[in-house]
């Protein structure tokens, strides 16, 4: 089932949580809502689930307006960040809950419930835990049970609110791969909220980047990482170096460097910032007359095949982070304190707003 949201707005007091947000979630995709805390992603998810009411706009399920439907009538699966398992019920009863509260004529018989719960427990690979209470499970197990519980009512949509947020790093990694495999198996339209870019890029078919209640960019993980649409997205997805300068007639000038920026052909001596990821930076020995920015190597950290360099700009404009193959690091025989020449191989230029 596809989901659309149209012009959603929501405030908490003076705080704008969502500012006229419109999005499409096509059938069968796994979409990540990614952004820093306070960007409105959880609020949006809760509005889709019917747990929160929007001040304006509408939510459409499969083209049908569901804005006025109550949460219990929307038939969505929702997985809470802190699991929200019923602590007085066994794992089995937790999963069976959604079936047991169905109206009598829709409710499966005791055997139907048992079969369904057992198959879900197998799906989440925890069938041996049926009679335990939630307090006796680990965090990762609880999250999988919460997912099984949400799936029991065969929702057409699965919504996950920071599903791995409360878990430690190792379990997190395992679980997100597992979630991806699970999604490939059941193909339910799924939206999950996360503030962890690595998680979003690894798991999702598409990523929606949000900031301050607005959508910044929508795209596949590769698109958003390789071609960030806004400075915010650039900064949020991985580390980035900023070079301040001026753009004029399709060329960006900073230091003694001039870089092509054809997208700003109309700019006239406008303040601009060039964004460059650490691995897009070239480092070389200083030679008089060569173009580049002078920087002193403060620290080099070699981790496996790559070397991470921390460089301090000689003109006092801050630090530059570069990532080069460790092989190159060895060949250049770099030592801390060396003065080097730094050049961005690829940049994306944004004009300063106003």
């Amino acid at each position: 089932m596809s989901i659309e949201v149209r012009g959603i707005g929501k405030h908490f007091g003076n705080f704008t949580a969502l500012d006229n947000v419109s999005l499409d979630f096509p059938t069968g995709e796994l979409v990540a809502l990614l952004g820093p805390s306070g960007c409105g992603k959880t609020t949006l998810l809760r509005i889709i689930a019917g747990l929160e009411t929007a001040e304006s706009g509408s939510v459409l399920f499969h083209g049908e307006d569901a804005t006025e439907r109550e949460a219990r009538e929307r038939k969505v699966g929702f997985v809470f960040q802190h699991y929200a398992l019923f602590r007085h019920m066994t794992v089995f009863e937790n999963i069976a809950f959604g079936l047991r509260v169905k109206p009598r004529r829709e409710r499966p018989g005791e055997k139907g419930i048992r079969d369904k719960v057992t198959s879900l427990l197998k799906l989440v690979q925890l069938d041996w835990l049926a009679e335990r209470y939630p307090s006796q499970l680990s965090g990762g197990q609880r999250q999988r049970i919460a997912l099984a519980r949400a799936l029991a009512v065969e929702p057409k949509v699965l919504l996950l609110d920071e599903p791995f947020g409360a878990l430690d790093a190792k379990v997190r990694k395992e679980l997100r791969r597992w979630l991806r495999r699970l999604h490939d198996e059941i193909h339910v339209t799924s939206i999950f909220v996360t503030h962890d870019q690595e998680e979003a890029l690894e798991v999702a078919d598409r990523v929606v980047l949000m900031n301050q209640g607005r959508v910044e960019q929508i795209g596949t993980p590769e698109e958003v990482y390789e071609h960030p649409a806004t400075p915010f997205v650039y900064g949020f997805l991985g580390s980035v170096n900023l070079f301040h300068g001026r753009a004029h007639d399709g060329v960006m000038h900073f230091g003694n460097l001039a870089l092509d920026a054809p997208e700003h052909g109309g700019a006239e001596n406008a303040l601009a910032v060039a964004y460059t990821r650490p691995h897009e930076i070239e480092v070389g020995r200083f030679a008089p007359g060569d173009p580049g920015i002078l920087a002193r190597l403060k620290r080099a950290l070699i981790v496996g095949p790559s070397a991470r360099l921390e460089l301090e700009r000689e003109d006092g404009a801050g630090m530059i982070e570069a990532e080069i193959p460790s092989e190159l690091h060895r060949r250049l025989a770099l030592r801390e304190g060396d003065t080097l020449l730094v050049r961005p191989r690829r940049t994306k230029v944004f004009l300063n707003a106003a």
Partner: protein
Amino acid sequence: MSFALRTRHSVLPGFGLALGFTVLYLSLIVLIPLSAAFIRTAGMSWEAFWRTVTAPRVLASFELSFGAAFIAALINAFFGLIVAWVLVRYRFAGKKLIDALVDLPFALPTAVAGIALTAVYSSKGWIGQYLEPNGVKVAFTPLGVVVALTFIGLPFVVRTVQPVLADLGRELEEAASVLGATRRQTFVRVILPAILPALITGFALAFARGVGEYGSVIFIAGNMPMKSEIAPLLIVTKLEQYDYAGATAIAVVMLVASFLLLFALNLLQWWARRRGGQDS
């Protein structure tokens, strides 16, 4: 009873002094005097003891004390839950003041409560004048005892249920509603089971307090033997007649009953902790 020395080394001083003083003070004020009641009774023959505590007037007083306390605790469990719910979930004018006043029965001397309730519920009182013409006599009847014990036990259920309800977390209710539960199903299947241990605890505390209550009851009860005479009053009456043995025998029955209740309550809490775990 033995308190073994500490099993883990600690750098903090004062263990011997603090524990020694605690145990000494506890023994002098509580344990030795309480044991006096049991030792006194041990001096009685079993037959004499049995005759004393099964005398019709004594049995009638037990029935009243335990029965009225039970009914009052039930009333408090029902309305206390509503009060706790309203105080946790809703906003309305004067809520803070009302929240504070719920503890009034803990702070108001029982004698004051007793005469106030009598004044209000007697035939000419503010509330009694409307009840009496309708055939409901409260003051100077067993019903009066229930009213006094309801007053005395009122905060227990509210104060045990309130924090549990507050920390229940709205996620649980949201989870239930997303899974398709109606509001009623959510209450019966999710909220009620979660607060049940607290509700039973509050009920038991109110009941225990009601069984032993004296000050607030004696004014409103009328104190007619066999009809509206509570067990603690019978103890006082026997004491005034210098029937120490009789008074002590009744006291021992009541003490044993309240210790059993205390024990049951500890079991309940242990069970609730084990079942519920410390976190969700």
